[in-house]
């Protein structure tokens, strides 16, 4: 078992960005440098106090942005992308497999049928025929494993590397490492599960990293972000007047406190907040897209409307320079009973939207610089539960990647003949994260942050880049 509590083997005691802790910054804080330099206030200050300013990684990146299609509740690999003839053959056979909820049934064959697609001949189930058209863009990692049998620790782990709450998630690490392109929008956006967040906001938390790096939850309907709407008695002019007075009074204060860059940064954050009220609303306004685009994402079909809207919004965010977008599926793929019905429903909700997203990214030339990841927090058992469902399975599951820097049409690793456990080229969550960072130009061993007496990494003390899936 991997270490549930990491220990720093990384030798830099204080990260080179230690000063960020003090300087803060944020979801689009104006780069101070220009302002201060133009006023000749800063002689010997650091080049930039804005932690979200874009900066170079450790080496040239293949991917500039990430769209992570997170299939919450855990889809089943053997029923979607990794059919197992042996499982079909041994259908009904009893095993000694232990499952999370106890009392598992016998081996259960997939209720779905499969066909091969693309030049690579990847098998895909008959419920995912639109996604199937894109298999030649995808690298399938079929041998993932993680530590927890339970959803929330597993979601924490797939996001942060550790199956316990309170640690920075991948999106936070990436924003810490690279900053973001558009200073008027957050660098890390989460398009959440409309049913709510199991495990709460810690799924996109920044842990001990500065909160500037945490994910911002965008709602797909209504007000996208908290506090984006003015209170009813306030209009834009009222607020503009407030900001003008604030500027005058803060200026007086600043005159008595020259040298405190934090004060200037804070003044600018108010101006930015004022602007964001327009910017953020624009970026989520899908009415700016054509009907054809809506159809491409399945927004015209009630079954796929919600996920389609989120996928389209993800594209708009990436197009606007957001670094990391995580798109949660709605409800849960958590098919403890009647897997056929559950997976049919979730396939229908996501199939066209995901295919549309891949096609749209490709058409717009964004796929070359955008990494798309698909997968859940773990997988599902080859044995049945409640007759026709499947229980949780962290021993072997599947993720695929497509887009920037990914070798299309390849498959890496295998589970055993019934799909219970990863046996060949096993891939840990640390490995996935190492690969993700690598594609973004970050060396997972060098991206460190000093906290509570030691240097932490997204990949703990482990992780290997899976070069076999890289183009």
């Amino acid at each position: 078992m991997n270490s549930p509590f990491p220990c720093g083997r990384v030798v830099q005691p204080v990260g080179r960005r230690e000063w960020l802790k003090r300087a803060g910054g944020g979801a689009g804080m104006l780069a101070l440098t220009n302002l201060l330099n133009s006023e000749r206030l800063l002689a010997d200050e650091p080049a930039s106090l804005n932690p979200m300013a874009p900066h170079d990684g450790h080496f040239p990146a293949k991917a500039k942005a990430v769209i992570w299609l997170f299939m919450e509740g855990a889809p089943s690999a053997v029923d979607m992308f990794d059919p197992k003839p042996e499982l079909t053959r041994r259908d009904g056979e009893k095993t000694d497999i232990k499952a999370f909820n106890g009392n598992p049934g016998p081996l259960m064959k997939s209720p779905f049928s499969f066909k091969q697609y693309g030049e690579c001949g990847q098998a895909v189930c008959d419920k995912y025929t639109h996604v199937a058209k894109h298999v030649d863009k995808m690298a399938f990692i079929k041998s993932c494993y993680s530590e927890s049998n339970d959803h929330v620790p597993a979601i924490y782990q797939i996001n942060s590397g550790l199956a316990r709450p309170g640690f920075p998630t991948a999106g936070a690490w990436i924003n810490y490492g690279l900053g973001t392109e558009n200073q008027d929008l957050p660098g890390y956006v989460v398009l959440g599960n409309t049913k709510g967040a199991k495990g709460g906001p810690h799924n996109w938390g920044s842990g001990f990293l500065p909160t500037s790096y945490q994910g911002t939850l965008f709602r797909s309907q209504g007000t996208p972000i908290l506090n984006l709407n003015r209170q009813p008695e306030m209009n834009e002019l009222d607020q503009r007047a407030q900001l003008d007075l604030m500027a005058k009074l803060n200026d007086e204060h600043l005159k008595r406190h020259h040298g405190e860059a934090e004060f200037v940064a804070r003044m600018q954050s108010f101006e930015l907040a004022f602007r964001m009220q327009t910017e953020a609303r624009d970026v989520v306004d899908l009415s700016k897209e054509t009907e054809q685009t809506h159809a491409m994402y399945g927004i015209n079909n009630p079954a796929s409307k919600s996920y389609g809207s989120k996928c389209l919004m993800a594209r708009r965010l990436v197009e606007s320079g957001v670094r990391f977008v995580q798109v949660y599926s709605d409800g849960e793929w958590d098919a403890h009973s009647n897997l056929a019905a559950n997976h049919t429903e979730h396939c229908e909700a996501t199939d066209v939207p995901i295919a549309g997203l891949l096609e749209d990214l490709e058409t717009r030339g964004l796929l070359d610089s955008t990494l798309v990841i698909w997968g859940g927090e773990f997988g599902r058992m080859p044995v049945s539960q409640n007759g026709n469902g499947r229980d949780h399975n962290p021993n072997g599951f599947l993720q695929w990647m497509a887009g920037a820097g990914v070798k299309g049409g390849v498959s890496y690793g295998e589970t055993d003949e019934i799909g219970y456990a990863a046996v060949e080229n096993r891939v840990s969550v640390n490995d996935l994260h190492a690969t993700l960072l690598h594609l973004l130009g970050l060396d997972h061993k060098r991206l460190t942050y000093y906290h509570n007496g030691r240097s932490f990494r997204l990949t703990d003390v482990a992780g290997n880049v899976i070069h076999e899936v890289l183009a």
Partner: protein
Amino acid sequence: MRTSLFCLFVLISHVNAWSDSNRVTNGLQVLYTFDEGRGDVVHDVSGTGEPLDLAIIDANMVQWSQGFVTLRNETLMKSDRPAKKLRQSIVQSKELTIEAWVKPANDTQSGPARIVSFSSDTSHRNITLGQNANAWEARLRTTATSENGTPATVTARGTCSNELAHIVYARDLSGTATMYLNSLAIVSQSVGGDLSNWDDFHLLLANEATGDRAWLGELHLVAIYSRALLPGEVKQNYEAGSDQEPPWAESVPSPVARTVDFVNDVQPILRAHCFECHSAGNEEGSLNLAIKSLAMEGGEHGPVLVRGNSLASSIVHLVSGVEPDRMMPPEDNEPLNAEQIGILRAWIDQGAAWPAGVDVLDPRLEKAREHWSFQRLKKTAMPVSKGGDVWSRTSIDAFIAEKLVENKISVSKPLPPNALARRIYFDVIGLPPTPEQVDTFVSSYGEDPIQAVSSLVDQLLSSQHYGERWARHWLDLVRFAESDGQESDRDRPTAFRYRDFVIHALNDDMPFDQFVRWQIAGDEYEPNSPVAVAATGFLTAGTNSVLDEKFIEEERLFNRYNELDDVISTLGTSMLGITVGCARCHDHKYDAFSAREYYRLLSVFHSGDRKSGKLPNGEDGLFFRDFDSSVRTTWLFRRSDFFDRELEVKMGFPSMLSAGRDADQYWTEAKSESQKVNSTFQRRALAEWITDVEFGGGPLLARVIVNRIWQHHFGQGLVRTENDFGVRGELPTHPDLLEYLANDFVANGWQFKRLHRMILNSAVYQQGSKRWSERWQPYSQQDADAMKVDPDNRLLWKMTPMRLEVEALRDAMLSVSGALNLQAFGPSFKPYIPPEANLARNIKGENYPSDAPDNADTRRRSVYMFHKRLVPYPLFQAFDRPDLLVGCSRRQNTTVAPQAMAMLNDRFVRDCAIDFARHLLADGGDNDMKLVEDSFRLAFSRRPSDLETEASISFIQAQREAREERDRLEAPIEAVADYCQTLFGLNEFIYVD
């Protein structure tokens, strides 16, 4: 978890891969040079493919020497797997050569006695080279010879003796087999057929696989080629000799030309560069370079030192970086320099002498014994002023002054009294002073500044609000919240009793040692005291997740041990400033805290759990208690494997912090002094140890908490790594001062208030926070120097403006608005959280209300706000409130747009602004000038400047007009509220000078 990158062991098997030497390499398949010097493995150093290493079946039968091995008695060296690739390459090329440098023990052994054999038993082989009395014999199986390889090729009688010899058998494509002795061809004959019938046998040396054709003597070199060496090549190999230097020898620094001494020359190198991974605790690759017997033995994969032969010693190969990928020490560590490698080589070449009695049994412990923070407290005298210090008032000042004078800089001017009042109020009670309180202070300050500050400090420290303010610092550290976290996130409706305990303890100035003891074992000290029992809420404050029995055991154990890990990690960090969690999977890399000690500490809590139940007074509470008086077994789970239950451990405390009393002594005492409680008293033993300044963890406990108090007053600690007092942590900027304060603290009953007084009354605390005029011009040359000499202000030549924590920000907004409800203690209130932020799914038990009101009940101080882990209060979350999943010793201090958006658009902020407006209007009527002056005095403890007054008034008037034009019914109030909300957003509101 061990990381192979950092381990020497994975590398050993690849050393000596000679790619280029005087020897022929073309077609080389395996090469054994017998340079191991020790152990039971002979390494294939050909560098061709996967090495085909040989295991010595009974290593007691051999004797290693420099560059060769002697078969003294019968044994066998056998490849670790069938030599499939060897067979394939030879079958494919249809040629082969077997070459050996050997010295037979006698000229009588026969059979033939197997020197090199590729065979399965006495009658099945591919090839064998052997000795038959005083002749050499080779048996090759082809489609034309027997399965036993006969007829054999045999040299003349008398060609084999007990002299060192170079014997080569080569068979070429045409089927000609030639044997060379010392480079001369002595027999040649045709052996027909091909090799297609060869099998995948093991490769053997010195015996047949069946063990009945032993050969004795010295093996210096064995090589097999997949081609027939030409006569010239045989000569070349013969001339290269039996024991060559590796080709990389040239790139390795030469041995130093002097006699080296282990203790003075060598051990310091090992200590600095190797011990971290290769000594007790962290024997990466099972290699220990700190203890003679273990160092000589080598690691998992063989020896690293060959006495008398530095070039054959893999340690030299590795530290020289001949192969950059395998460099030791690895990665970012500083490599050995040429001089150091030269010393190491000379030492090995001179026989690797290692005197008795200089083994380092545990270098971490040795280092810990010298580490400043792990020492007993030392009495420290106040420094004697050497002049140049005209401002010192207190003992603290004297210590600070000493360093400033040394650096020729001085403190800043004292803060003006109104600003000082604001600083002290926020610092001590977390609330702004009223204008009247400011006036009172300013006037008494005019009469006697020292007395004025001293009385104010006394007054505030005796206020109930002091505990409310400082409890928050402690609650952050112990990640106190009022729900379970994890998926279900159930409310903990009685957890507030722990929070109340902390506030009361601070207000009552409970001695800190008692404060700590009760939190660890209050129930074992005062079983009848509800407060003492509730104090164990410290142990229950973390997240938890409990699955019932039907769920898979692995997951339940995972939860249980994660929780215990969280308990001891939080205890280690918050109380002792050390990281213990690392040791869960391996011994601590830097500090002398081993995995065994981790589990020993864990065992203290392994016999108990959290419990919701009745406190001694009948009230409901949430506390920790042992299951009963029997101690539950604890195991050392190697690599966190919960099913590894071989190694039982008993309770124990970190030895690096102990001085002569072990856990059992504390335990015996704890049990004997205790009242009748159904408990194990292990926690009480720990509580005694951790507060014991003479023999236990007390000195560190005191240093860590004194540093934390300092940190909250000054923004940073004397030790800036406040959670790491271990060997990797930063040193204190003022070590003597910290020591002085820690001594004073302990000697005077571990009381916070005394320490606060010492700090608050000091001149260094009361100095200003700015040293610049406009445009970054220092006021004086001295200020300019200070900025140059100490830009980080480590010497405290000024104060740094501090941003209020969000709790203080909220309390201040309520306070200046006259809307703060000061009701203290008791159950927490739940503030309104908008649906956008109230979205956690699957919460068990009571959901967070969607319609919480904003009224007097929810306008209490922030310390009484309910923190539900999965539904954090958005205003707090925006302003860096920690998530309270793990302990937090220092708030982040970020400046982000969502904070500004909250100040602009959050309903609560706006409502506070309206209350502030009503408050001002009620007091000032419609006199805008007075209203602005009142607002500044309330919000900033000062009067506005003319410019500020003018700007404010014109804003209010403009807003009044604008709102009247929009027919707002309450335009006058709204206009003032617009103004008040603006004040809340100002830097001056959230920063304290």
